[in-house]
């Protein structure tokens, strides 16, 4: 992989120059949190931690139209915009890699593929906060899935990994800003930075052996207890970078003389999710739904991937009002102490 350097003071200028390729999006502050927004690169916050929604919103927006039906014919509707997303952290890139397998292999989904192909991924290194546990899911370092990856190793330069042919093209837009000369000192500094970063994780989460533990815990009463607290609000699914469930609905846009077929995000935490004809519900109880969610996050994802789908970004920690999240559930299953409303003594 080509590794080059960019003078830190030139980052904004470089990102602006990319507007000739597509819209430039990056992390900006929203209250105490962050979101990916289309703003001038000078407004991007390089200290950003996890954004409220993961980058999946670029590839499968919360709600979009797949087809329009007019005059007896269905027409596909595609989002053709080209986007550059700057500031993805390794966990987010892992999240995209999982979605890629889901949407791009086996019945490739053209809506996803179109958006994915029109999007450049510019990763950015990060330092963990108290909610990050990507070190436990082993998603804190990323080798693929990006076009460029910027590492801030605390010097005057960013080290830039060029991860794809598109990434290479993007560096050529302003070749003059990059420096090919990565020195021994730079490499040492990078290795030192990694060491420091890894030491900064505050999580004591250990996910080794989790699949077996989840498997054997299927009937344990702890699920009922968690289920009692769960609000079925679905926030956990909405913010999870690897939750991909959706619903399909038709709408009669009579005032435009067309019918559209839309897709919108859904969640296995909703009661209706597993309801079938005749009113039978395969996951009537909240605890049943939580089990499905955590089976996906902690044991296997899809039979063909056989890999847990949690990437350790900490968004569920940020989103669940009652403290049901991967670290808490995993710890509770392992019998460790958990600070959450459902884990408190009596009732």
């Amino acid at each position, binding site marked *: 992989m080509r590794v080059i350097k960019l003078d830190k003071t030139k980052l904004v200028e470089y990102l602006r120059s990319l507007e000739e390729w597509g819209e430039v999006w990056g992390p900006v502050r929203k209250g105490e949190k962050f979101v990916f927004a289309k703003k001038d690169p000078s407004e991007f916050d390089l200290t950003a931690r996890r954004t409220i929604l993961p980058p999946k919103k670029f590839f499968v927006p919360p709600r979009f139209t797949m087809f329009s039906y007019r005059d007896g014919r*269905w027409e596909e509707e595609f989002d053709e915009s080209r986007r550059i997303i700057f500031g993805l952290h390794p966990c987010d890139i892992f999240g995209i890699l999982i979605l890629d397998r889901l949407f791009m292999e086996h019945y490739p989904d053209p809506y996803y593929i179109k958006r994915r192909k029109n999007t450049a991924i510019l990763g950015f290194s990060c330092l963990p906060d108290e909610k990050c546990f990507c070190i436990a899911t082993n998603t804190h370092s990323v080798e693929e899935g990006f076009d460029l990856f910027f590492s801030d190793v605390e010097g005057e330069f960013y080290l830039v990994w060029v991860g794809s042919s598109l990434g290479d093209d993007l560096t050529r837009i302003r070749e003059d800003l990059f420096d090919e000369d990565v020195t021994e000192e730079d490499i040492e500094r990078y290795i030192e930075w990694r060491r420091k970063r890894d030491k900064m994780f505050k999580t004591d989460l250990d996910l080794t052996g989790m699949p077996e533990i989840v498997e054997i815990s299927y009937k344990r009463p702890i699920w009922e207890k968690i289920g009692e607290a769960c609000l079925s609000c679905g926030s956990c699914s909405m913010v999870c970078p690897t939750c991909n469930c*959706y*619903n*399909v609905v038709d709408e009669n846009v009579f005032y435009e003389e067309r019918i559209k077929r839309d897709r919108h995000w859904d969640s296995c935490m909703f009661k209706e999710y*597993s309801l079938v004809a005749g009113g*039978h519900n395969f996951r009537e109880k909240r605890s*049943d739904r939580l089990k*499905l969610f955590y089976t996906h996050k902690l*044991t296997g994802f899809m039979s063909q991937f056989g890999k847990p789908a949690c990437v350790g970004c900490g968004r569920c920690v940020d989103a669940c009002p009652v403290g049901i999240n991967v670290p808490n559930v995993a710890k509770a299953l392992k019998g460790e102490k958990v600070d959450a409303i459902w884990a408190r003594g009596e009732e």
Partner: protein
Amino acid sequence: MNPYEMQRARIVRIYRLTDDVKFFQVRPYMGTEVCELNYRPGQFMMISLPGIGEAPFSISSTPSRPGLYEFCIRKVGRLTEKIFELKENAVIWLRGPYGNGFPVEQMEGHDLLIIMGGLGAAPLRSLLLYALDNRELFGKIYLLHGARTPDDMLFREEFLELMHRDDLVCLLTVDRDDTGRWPAYTGVVTELFRYVKGIDPKNTYAAVCGPPVMYKFVVEKLVELQIPKNQILMTLERRMKCGIGKCGHCAIEYIYTCLDGPVFTYWDVLHMKELI
């Protein structure tokens, strides 16, 4: 190719099977000649009407009789109600076929026990007709079919005809017969197992489909008969929005009913806590 894209099709003929189930013969628009339709028994298709929605339906016909798809549809909600209102020649939209279907190649050379209840007749009729059309490929064939009353029995006339054939044993039962003219058995479907004789369990495939409550009792009987657990096949129903392993609704633990099913073996079921 957009896997969500639908194909235009025409309803050729409609038969009423029971008060709330109709049978539809559907021909895709593909030029004028009779077309080869490429599917396996046990597979399903997504049927849609613009503005109303889309839902999965098992194919009831057999690929051994080309030209038409047949569906057996029960009126339960928005889409199915609208499909019920359609007349012959109406246009509907299809995509598929999807799902694994029955492993017919593996089943060849075996005895077959086909056990259906209620709407379970829809996918299993496909398998049954397939086996009858390729009769020489299979050993003994038993059909066990249960319904509440004679009026509720899907494909009643068609199956009553089969009782006269000597190359299969067709056992039909109803829970209750108020007509007094029911020519076959009364009682629940599991009682029909009494009449299942002379099969070689190790060399038998059983296929079961029916309402969720039926599986438990039928499977017990099949296990009693000592049919290997991986030769007991069942087709399952889940909510589905895409049919192609993306929307997540049909997930059972980490597998997808639409890709890895809807046909599962009892062995699979034993290993998946949520299956039935």
